[in-house]
């Protein structure tokens, strides 16, 4: 009896969570006539919604809808990859070294972690305006550097927080043994610490990537034409007159692909990272 209830609960939660995604998939293959229809499987499936992302033409349905989209999705896609990707890379690299310092050498004293976390307690909207002004004054508006540095700085806290935990799991004696054997501290990092914390690093990187990938506010403010990221571009699919549900569904799905891909590629490391466990 208990197991039946458990399964029922699981099914309900799964359906609740996945239903919107299923609907999105369905929408992305539907023509405008079916957008308001309740059927899950499109009666006349089309791929125009995907095609028009990359080769924008007048939307299906003629001039019924007003659209201002004239560029293919490829540029924003690449911009997002660059901004989120490099931002994550920077955050993880710096964060790892910082976490190592905090874990092994007590860098920053006992409260440093707490203080860095404080920065995350302010909503981004509070410093969008001053940031804009500052960036404008140094000519950073609409540049890749601006986004990358910003993303790295903002997610650095999470990076340090997450990775410190993973580094703490490794007994310091394991590194000390390597030191005694002639390894320099850098060699120790390279040959001992990083291989052993690979799983944790992968998990942190994925988490931070997703954060950066879906960031909207700052991207909106900083980008004008050159570095428009995907979330900003997607928002443009909402037009004054109507909503292009079909294309919004397709672009939404396309936007999830890099994160899914990344997760898939590192899942092996995620598993080994979390299961090597403690010996004895």
């Amino acid at each position, binding site marked *: 009896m208990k197991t039946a209830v458990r399964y029922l609960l699981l099914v309900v939660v799964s359906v609740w969570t996945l239903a919107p995604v299923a609907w999105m998939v369905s929408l992305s293959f539907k023509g405008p006539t079916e957008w308001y229809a309740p059927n899950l499987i499109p009666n006349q499936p089309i791929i125009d919604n995907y095609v028009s992302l990359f080769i924008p033409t007048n939307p299906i349905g003629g001039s019924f809808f007003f659209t201002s989209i004239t560029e293919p999705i490829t540029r924003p896609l690449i911009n997002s990859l660059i901004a989120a990707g490099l931002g994550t890379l920077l955050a993880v690299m710096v964060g790892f070294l910082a976490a190592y310092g905090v874990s092994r050498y007590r860098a920053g004293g006992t409260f440093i972690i707490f203080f860095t976390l404080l920065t995350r307690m302010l909503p981004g909207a509070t410093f969008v305006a001053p940031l804009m002004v500052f960036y404008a004054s140094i000519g950073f508006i609409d540049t890749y550097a601006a986004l990358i540095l910003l993303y790295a700085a903002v997610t650095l806290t999470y990076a340090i927080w997450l990775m410190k935990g993973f580094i703490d799991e490794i007994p310091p004696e394991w590194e*000390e043994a390597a030191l005694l054997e002639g390894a320099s501290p850098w060699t120790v990092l390279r040959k001992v610490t990083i291989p*052993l914390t690979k799983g944790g690093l992968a998990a942190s990187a994925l988490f931070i990537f997703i954060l950066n990938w879906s960031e909207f506010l700052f991207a909106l403010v900083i980008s004008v034409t050159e570095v428009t990221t995907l979330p900003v571009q997607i928002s443009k699919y909402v037009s004054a007159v109507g909503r292009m549900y079909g294309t919004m569904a397709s672009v939404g799905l396309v936007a999830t692909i890099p994160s899914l891909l990344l997760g898939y590629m590192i899942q092996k490391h995620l598993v080994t990272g979390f299961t090597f466990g403690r010996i004895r």
Partner: protein
Amino acid sequence: MVGVRLVNVSKKAGKRQILKNVSLEIPDKELFVIAGPPGAGRTTLLKVIAGLISPDAGEVYIGNQMVNTVPPSDRDVGMVFETPPVYPNRTGFQNIAFPLEIKKVSDSQIKEQVQKVAEFLQITHLLDRKPATYSGGELQRVALARVLVRKPRLLLLDEPLKNLDAKIRERTRVELKRLQREFGMTMVFSTHDQLEATAVGDRIAVMKEGMIEQIGAPKEVYNSPKTVFVARFIGSPTMNLAECTLKRKDDRLVLDASDFNVDMTMRAHEMDREAMSQELLLGVRPEDIVLLDSPANTKSFEGEVELTENFGDERVVTVRVGKVSLNCLTGKDRVFKYGQKLHVKFKEEKVHVFHKQTGIAACVTSQM
């Protein structure tokens, strides 16, 4: 292999003084044991020798070279830690080969040397397996192999036997000693177990709260402890202690512990000059108390059995004499019952005397 010398080494961590002015000298090829209760500073001392911790004051010499400014990677010291450094993401072979990898030794050489050490420690079956499958004893051996494979000039072991089952501990203890003897290694071994310390060491340093109380061969530390702490730390069951004073009775010199006394006339020349006027502690080891069913002569005292413990080949009988409980060691062939009345007799030549205030020995016990 080289010797080690520490001169006035001190180390503080936060508010606590972990090492207070420690000095010792370990000659080449000796198995030196640092023994003491947890918190005495043993691990810190070993790490200072290894270079993983820098002392606040004092000098560390390895061989004849002062190594205070030499980083741990250049000291050529091997250390076996309490938690064996065996990496779970590498096989046994790769773990043992690690130090050689760092030294950039050729692959063929690595293979040869790892194989040799593995054969020697009988762990060749572990070479292709990952540590997740190892037992506690096997982990320690792989850790040891890793340290031995690069033939360091000094070997430090920090409680290497602590996490092993009792039976395996016995065996490994002997193996380590044999290893040390066969290869003439200079080994510094840290432990909280006094039995291990005396069984294994050529010389022992007994540490308490960051200071060395006494250094000497096992027999010396056992028979002639210089302080109360050493007297009670070394030897199991623990030495019995009773408060007493030194008095003259008629012609004789007697240690009076109110409930019993010991005639020290024969050993008057061993006693400290200040002993007469001070509060003293009488120490007698359980095996130096003889249990008799009937009074011997004036030198035995009546007592009652409080507790008996069966140790297999021996028995420990706790006898209450007046206000004092004395642990006595006897053979297994005698049976004692609760509340049984009997008499205790002390082996006078084996009695120890300490100053109560300072804990320092008040008489020189001759070595047996």
